C-alpha cells in the first residue's frame, strides 16, 4: 500500500508547477473570461501555453511515443491534469483526453497517424458533439442524420450545449447512421471540420458567464475517412470512452478553497481572525477532509488503469463526489464571505477577485454535465452493486 507519489513523480509535479507559474500570462486569464471559456481549451492565448506543455509530452503523457506521448503512467497523467486545473489552465481537452484515446483504441492505423500526433502536440482541439435538444441523459435519442452518399456522409440536424465549438478546430460528432433497429446501434462517431460549409454555431450564455453553443448542421459533407472505427458502432465507443474519461478534478475549486483558508486567517473582525470562529473551523476542516477524499477517489481511477483494469462504478463515484464537493466548497465560501460574497470581480471592496461568486454560479453545472448525479448513482447501483436495471 502507498498513497504518496514517488520521488520522480514529485519532481515532475514540481517541474510542472514551475512551468505553469512561469508561462501563465495575464492575457491568457483575460481571454478565458472574455471568451467565456472556463476550463475549455482552444482560444489563441491558451493554445500558446498548451503547445509548450504538449512539447514536453504533458498533454497526452500516456500515449505511445510514436504518437507524441511519453508512455508515462496514468498516475502522472492524472497528476498533470490536476496541476493544470488547480492553476486555472484549461484542463478539459476533448482532443487529447476523449477523442484521442478513442482514436487510439478504435481508429484505423491511417486515422491514428493522421490525427494523433497533431492532437498530442496541442495543435488541434476538438469539441464534443453529443447532446441534442431531445438527447441529454438519454444520449441514444440523438437524431442528427448522417446519410451515406458513397464517398461522403451528408449531415443534417442540431446539436445543443456543445461547448467550445467556437474555438475548436473539429467537432467530435455522434450522429445517426441507421434509423432502423435499436437506437444505440445506429450511432456513428465522425470528425467534422468546424469550418465546413453548412455549419452554424450559435452562442448560448450560461448563468456563470461561460459560453456553450447550439450547432446547426445543414447539408454538411463529411469525407468517409473521417468516420471513426466502424459505422453504427459509435455508441459503444462513446460509452467505453466515458469509463476512462469521466474523471473530474477539483482544479480551481480546490484552489479557491486554499484562498478561502488564507482569507480567514488574514481577515479579522473585532481583532480576531475569522479562522478562530469555531463554526468556520468546523466547515473548513470538513471541506479539507472532503478534498482529501476526492484525492483518493481520483488517483484510484489512475491506479485501476495502471493495473490494466477499467474503472467501472468508481468513475461515477469519483465524478459525483467531486462535483458535489465543489458545490459545497463554493456554498461554504459564499457563506463565509457573507455580504462580500456578492461582489463581482472589479467591484470596489471585492475579495478573492470575485472568484467565489463566479465559481458558485458555475458549480451548478458540475452535477449535471458529464452525466448527471442521478445517472451516476444509477450506474453505481447497477454496475457497482448489480441491482436490477
Amino acid at each position: 500500500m502507498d498513497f504518496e507519489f514517488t520521488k520522480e513523480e514529485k519532481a515532475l509535479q514540481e517541474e510542472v508547477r514551475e512551468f505553469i507559474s512561469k508561462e501563465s500570462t495575464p492575457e491568457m486569464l483575460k481571454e478565458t473570461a472574455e471568451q467565456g471559456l472556463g476550463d475549455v481549451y482552444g482560444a489563441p492565448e491558451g493554445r500558446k501555453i498548451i503547445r509548450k506543455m504538449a512539447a514536453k509530452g504533458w498533454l497526452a503523457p500516456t500515449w505511445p511515443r510514436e504518437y507524441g506521448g511519453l508512455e508515462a503512467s496514468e498516475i502522472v497523467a492524472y497528476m498533470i491534469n490536476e496541476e493544470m486545473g488547480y492553476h486555472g489552465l484549461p484542463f478539459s481537452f476533448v482532443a487529447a483526453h476523449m477523442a484521442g484515446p478513442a482514436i487510439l483504441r478504435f481508429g484505423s492505423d491511417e486515422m491514428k497517424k493522421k490525427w494523433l500526433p497533431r492532437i498530442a502536440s496541442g495543435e488541434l482541439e476538438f469539441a464534443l458533439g453529443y447532446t441534442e435538444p431531445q438527447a441529454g441523459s438519454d444520449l441514444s435519442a440523438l437524431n442528427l442524420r448522417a446519410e451515406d452518399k458513397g464517398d461522403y456522409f451528408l449531415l443534417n440536424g442540431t446539436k445543443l450545449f456543445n461547448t467550445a465549438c467556437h474555438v475548436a478546430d473539429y467537432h467530435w460528432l455522434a450522429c445517426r447512421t441507421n434509423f432502423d433497429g435499436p437506437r444505440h446501434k445506429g450511432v456513428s462517431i465522425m470528425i467534422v471540420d468546424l469550418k465546413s460549409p453548412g455549419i452554424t454555431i450559435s452562442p448560448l450564455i450560461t448563468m456563470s458567464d461561460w459560453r456553450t453553443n447550439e450547432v446547426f448542421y445543414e447539408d454538411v459533407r463529411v469525407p468517409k475517412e473521417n468516420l471513426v472505427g466502424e459505422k453504427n458502432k459509435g455508441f459503444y465507443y462513446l460509452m467505453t470512452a466515458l469509463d476512462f474519461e469521466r474523471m473530474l478534478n477539483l482544479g480551481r475549486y480546490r484552489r479557491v478553497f486554499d484562498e478561502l483558508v488564507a482569507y480567514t486567517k488574514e481577515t479579522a473582525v473585532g481583532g480576531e481572525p475569522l479562522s478562530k470562529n469555531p463554526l468556520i473551523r468546523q466547515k473548513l476542516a470538513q471541506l479539507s477532509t472532503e478534498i482529501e477524499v476526492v484525492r483518493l477517489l481520483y488517483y484510484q481511477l489512475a491506479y485501476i488503469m495502471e493495473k490494466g483494469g477499467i474503472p467501472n462504478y468508481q468513475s461515477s463515484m469519483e465524478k459525483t463526489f467531486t462535483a458535489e464537493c465543489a458545490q459545497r466548497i463554493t456554498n461554504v465560501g459564499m457563506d463565509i464571505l457573507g455580504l462580500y460574497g456578492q461582489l463581482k470581480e472589479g467591484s470596489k471592496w471585492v475579495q478573492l477577485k470575485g472568484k467565489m461568486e463566479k465559481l458558485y454560479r458555475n458549480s451548478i453545472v458540475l452535477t449535471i454535465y458529464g452525466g448527471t448525479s442521478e445517472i451516476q448513482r444509477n450506474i453505481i447501483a447497477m454496475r457497482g452493486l448489480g441491482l436490477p436495471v
Partner: protein
Amino acid sequence: MDYNFSEEQELLKNAAKGFLLKECKPLFVREMENDPQGITPELWQKMAELGWMGVVFPEECGGIGGSYLDLIVLLIEMGYSCLPGPFFSTVVLGGATIMEAGNEEKKRELLAAIAEGKVFVTLALTEATAELSPERIAVKAQKDADDFAINGTKLFVPDAHLANYIICVARTEEGKNKEDGITLFLVDAKSQGVRITSLNTFAGDKLHEVVFNNVRVPKENVLGKLDKGWPIIEKVLQKAAIAKCAEMVGGGQRALELVIEQVTEREQFGKKVGGFQAVQHHCANILTCLETSRLMTHQAAWRISEGLPCEREVAMTKAWVSDSCRSLVALAHQAIGGTGFMEEHDLQLYFRRTKAAGVYFGDADFHREALADVMGL
C-alpha cells in the same frame, strides 16, 4: 501509488474472515452482549493460537513482528463480524501503550503474556468530563516514598472486569503547560482500593467505572517517564482512532451486504425493491460512504504503519469515517425497511456499534477541531 494490500495481507484477511464467519456468528455476538464476561475462553484461546494478539508485537516479545497495517486488516474483519471481547482494549489500547512506553523487561514480560492470551490489559483514560484533552486529567497520583497513591474516578474503561492490569493515566504534577505532569501507571487490577462497576451500555461494549481509592502503585510500574505520559497517550489515541475506523469499515461492509440481500429479494409493486431508483440511490450512497471510508482508513493506517507524519490524516479519517459510516447504517435501515427494524435482524447490531465507534477516541467534531489546528486556522 498502490491502493492494494500486499499478498500476505490479503491472505491474512481471508483467513480472518473465514475464521470469524465460523467462530463469531451473529448468535454468538448476541449471546456475548448479555454475557457478563463478554468473551469465551475458547474463542480467546483460538485467537491467541492464530497469533492475533501478537500481530504487532516484536518477535522477541512473543509476537509476529507485523505492521500496524496488518492489525488493521484484522480489525476490519473483526468489525465485519462484530467480534465481542477484550481484543481492542488488550491489544490496541493496552498493548500499544506498553509498546510505546514500557521498558524492555516490562515489554517482554507483558507483551509475551498478552500474545499467549494469558493476560488482559486495559486503559483508564477518560473521566467524568468524557473529554480527551490532557487538561481534563484530574485523577491524582501522589508520590509517597517509593510508591504512588492514586485517587479518583475513571469512566468508560473497557473490559476492566477482565483486566489483569489497568493502565491509569493520572496527574502527578500541576503542569505549567497542559501536556506536562501526566504519568502512566500499570495498576494491578486486584490492588486494594480499586473498585470496578460495570456500566450498562448501548452497543454491547463492556464499559466500567473504575474508582481508585488510595491505590498504591510501586514506582517500577510507571510506564515511560514521570510526568511525560501524555505524548504516549496521543500516539495510542491516534492508533486507537484509526483502529476504530477499521471496525466501522468492516461493519459498513456487512451492512451493505444485508441491504443487497434484502433489496434483491423483496418484491413490491410487481418488481424487486432494488429496481426502484430511490432505493438504488440509497445503495449508491451507501457504497460511496463505504468506499470513501475504506480509502481514508487505509491511507491513515498506512501512514501510521510507515511512521509518517499522520496528525492530519488521522483527524480527517476519524471525522470522515465517524460521520460516513453512521450515515451508511442509517441509509441501510431505510433501504431495508420494516424488517430491519426488528431486533432479530442483524443490522441493529451494526447500527449501535457504528454510533459508539463514531464517538470513541474523539468524535467527528473533535477531530475537525484538531484538523483546524493542523491547518493553522
